[in-house]
C-alpha cells in the first residue's frame, strides 16, 4: 500500500495527485473558531494518543489520499479500451497528413506519383498502414458506438431508441464508404482494365 504520509499534514499533496483539492473544511480551524475552547480541551481527555501533527484537531485528524498512479489507464479493460480510443487521434493526424502528401505527389506528375506508389507498396509501409487502418477502424467503431449516448433524438416527444440511432450511424458509414470506394475505383482503374465489367 502506497500512501502519502507527511504530505497530508501540509495540505493535499500536489506532487502525486497533481490536484489541489481544498483541505477538509474543519481541518484548518474553520470550526475551531466557533467551538468554545473548553470543548477542545475536553476532547483531549481520556482519548487515545494521536500522532504528532500540528494540523490535527481532535475530531478531524488526518484525511488519507490515495495517489493516482501515472498508469491509471491500465486499471481495467474499459480504461485500456478508452486510452486506445483516444490514441487513434494520432492515426487520424497521420492519415490527414498522408492524404495531403498523396495529393502533392499526384499534383507533381506521374513520376512523383509512381515513386510515392512504390513507397506505399514497400512491405514495411504496407504493414504500418494496415496498423493505421486498424486504428482508423477502431476510431470509427468506437466513435459511432458512442453516438447514441451523445445524441438524444426525440420524435413527437418520445426518445428514439439508442439502437436505432446506432444502426443509422453505422448504416451512414457503410453507405458513405461504398460511395468513396466506388468513386476511387472509378478514378483509379485504368479504363482499359477496369476491375468491374
Amino acid at each position: 500500500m502506497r500512501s502519502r504520509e507527511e504530505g497530508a499534514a501540509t495540505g493535499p499533496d500536489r506532487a502525486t495527485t497533481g490536484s489541489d483539492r481544498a483541505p477538509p473544511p474543519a481541518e484548518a480551524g474553520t470550526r475551531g473558531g466557533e467551538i468554545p475552547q473548553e470543548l477542545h480541551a475536553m476532547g483531549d481527555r481520556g482519548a487515545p494518543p494521536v500522532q504528532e501533527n500540528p494540523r490535527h484537531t481532535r475530531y478531524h485528524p488526518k484525511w488519507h489520499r490515495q495517489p493516482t498512479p501515472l498508469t491509471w489507464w491500465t486499471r481495467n479493460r474499459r480504461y485500456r479500451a478508452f486510452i486506445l480510443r483516444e490514441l487513434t487521434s494520432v492515426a487520424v493526424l497521420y492519415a490527414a497528413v498522408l492524404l495531403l502528401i498523396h495529393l502533392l505527389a499526384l499534383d507533381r506528375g506521374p513520376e512523383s506519383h509512381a515513386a510515392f506508389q512504390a513507397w506505399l507498396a514497400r512491405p514495411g509501409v504496407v504493414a504500418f498502414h494496415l496498423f493505421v487502418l486498424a486504428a482508423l477502424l477502431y476510431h470509427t467503431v468506437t466513435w459511432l458506438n458512442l453516438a447514441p449516448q451523445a445524441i438524444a433524438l426525440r420524435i413527437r416527444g418520445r426518445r428514439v431508441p439508442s439502437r436505432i440511432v446506432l444502426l443509422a450511424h453505422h448504416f451512414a458509414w457503410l453507405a458513405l464508404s461504398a460511395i468513396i470506394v466506388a468513386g476511387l475505383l472509378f478514378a483509379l482503374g485504368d479504363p482499359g482494365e477496369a476491375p468491374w465489367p
Partner: protein
Amino acid sequence: MALKPPREPLVWALFSAGGMVAALVLPALAGILWIAAPLGLLGPLDHEGLRLLAVHPVVRIGMGLLLPLFFFHWAHRFRHTLHDGLQLYHLSRFIALVTYGVALGLSLGALWILWSLG
C-alpha cells in the same frame, strides 16, 4: 462579469465534427488508397484519372474542409490524452497552445497546398 466567453465550445465542435467525418470517410480512403491500390489489388493505376479527381474543385473544397477538421480532432483529443493520461495538469496551457497551434499551422499549410494545386 469580466469572464471571457469560453472557447471550449469552439474546439469541442471542431473535435466532434472532425471525429465524425474521420469515422465516416477515413477507413474507406485509407483502405483503398494506401492498402488495396499499392498492393495491386485494383489492377494498374490510372494516374491521370486520379490526378483529375484530386484537383477537381469539389474534392479540393472538400479536402479544405476535412483536413482542418482532422487536425483539430487530433489536437483536441491528443491534448486531453497528454493532459489526463500523463497527469500533466501543470502544463495545461502549454499543451493546449502546442496542440491547437500545430493544428492551426497544419490547417493553414493544407489550405495553401490545396489552393496551389493544379
